[in-house]
């Protein structure tokens, strides 16, 4: 079999890791969505944590998955999520684009079973990892298109 150069190996690693992570996250999200909607909707899915439009939007598939992702960020890393939410909600560049748990304090974050908490932490880390690997994969594709073709 022909030897692959380093550039090709880098591309393969990025592609495989993005693809594997994407599939893992897809399945993980489907499972967690089922669990969290039943568990947290009665507590969290209301004003002022979500605005009126989001309550209408995130009620059905497929946008309801965004709501589940938010739950997992909040349960997994509450302090970090609330700090970031407060920044995006107030920042003049992002406040029209983002609205997350407005006015929520750490004491308002619901207490859940440790297993759910760990699962949410794992999901958030995987989500962050996929975002980083995905961006690197796109950069690689752009770089490859510009300099290797």
């Amino acid at each position, binding site marked *: 079999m*022909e030897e692959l150069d380093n550039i090709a190996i880098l591309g393969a690693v990025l592609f495989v890791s993005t693809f594997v992570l*994407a599939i893992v996250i897809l399945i993980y999200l489907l499972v967690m969505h089922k669990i969290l909607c039943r568990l947290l909707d009665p507590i969290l899915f209301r004003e002022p944590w979500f*605005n009126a439009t989001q309550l209408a939007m995130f009620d059905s*598939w497929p946008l309801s998955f965004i709501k589940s992702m938010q739950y997992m960020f909040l349960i997994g890393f509450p302090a970090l999520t609330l700090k970031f939410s407060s920044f995006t909600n107030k920042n003049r560049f*992002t406040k029209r684009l983002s609205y997350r748990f407005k006015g929520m304090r750490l004491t308002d974050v619901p207490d859940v079973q440790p297993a759910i908490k760990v699962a949410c932490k794992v999901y958030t880390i995987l989500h962050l990892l996929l975002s980083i690997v*995905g961006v690197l994969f*796109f950069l690689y594709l752009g770089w490859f*298109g510009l300099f290797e073709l």
Partner: protein
Amino acid sequence: MLTQQTTDYDTVLYRVRPGDTLSKIIHGYYGRIPVQQRNTIIDQIQTDNPEIKNPHRIFPDQVLKMAIPQRYCTAESHPGEMPVFDMGEQYAKAVQQQWQHAATSQEKDMLSTLTPIMLGTGAASMTMVERTFKANTPLLTEMVQNYEAYKAGDLRKGQYDYRRRRIVTQLKSRLGPLTRILDGTRRQSEVLRISRAKGRKPTRNIRRQIGRMGRVAKYAKAGGVVLAGVGLGLACNEIANTDDRQKKNEILVEAMGGLAGGLAVGTAIVLMFTPVGWIGALIVGASTAIASIASGAGTRVVYTAKFSKFDIASVTKVSQLCRN
């Protein structure tokens, strides 16, 4: 308070036309009413539209949100009225916000044309189709009940006709472009007619529409799931119909790259922002779709240039899985 009795009121978005005053708009809906009542309504409009500082100064193209008692929402629509889906307050608020952000008159014209089109496309609109049909099914049930009440002698002919006209108009404005899904090019009043044929239930047509609305809502919900799988299904079909080994592999890596890239960008966007309204949700959906197409095409190019020796379709058994 006007807005507290939400069940008796319709939320109406009214686009101010040149020469309009609040009194004139109110007269258009309520007819002649005492000055005191008119002033109360003006106060209520000001409360619902905080941007109106002075009730004597409203501007052409400004959009006003008004709660109008259902009995004043006549069958014929008002000239400045905009179609409102039955998302009630939430939808009205979202459209009004987008409207206030649009700067020029052309932008506003464009937005009013584009909004229903945008709402009719993309994954986010699947949610909207489902919700709109679900929310409006009770109107048709009400139509059947009205007919039965009329036949039982509880309603006079005039009352029944008025209620029927009102429901048809409400449905037409609330469903907007989605009406086409139900009856194609036929008029709503024709589709919802009472059947006169012998041996048939008079309300058969309306009941059929109720069933159809329920089914469309269900399909819309499932449609999103199907859409997600359509790309992979098509790729599998293409692989099955190609004999060329190289081509099979290119299709496969393009599908895999598209799926991975789309998901990666989607997750990255959600990590940074959460869409605030329908337009934002559609933008997130569109960005994910564009990223998916771009990464699919990019992966195919990289594969052709660097990895064409590798028969991924055979190694992963995809060529066996996707067969005619």
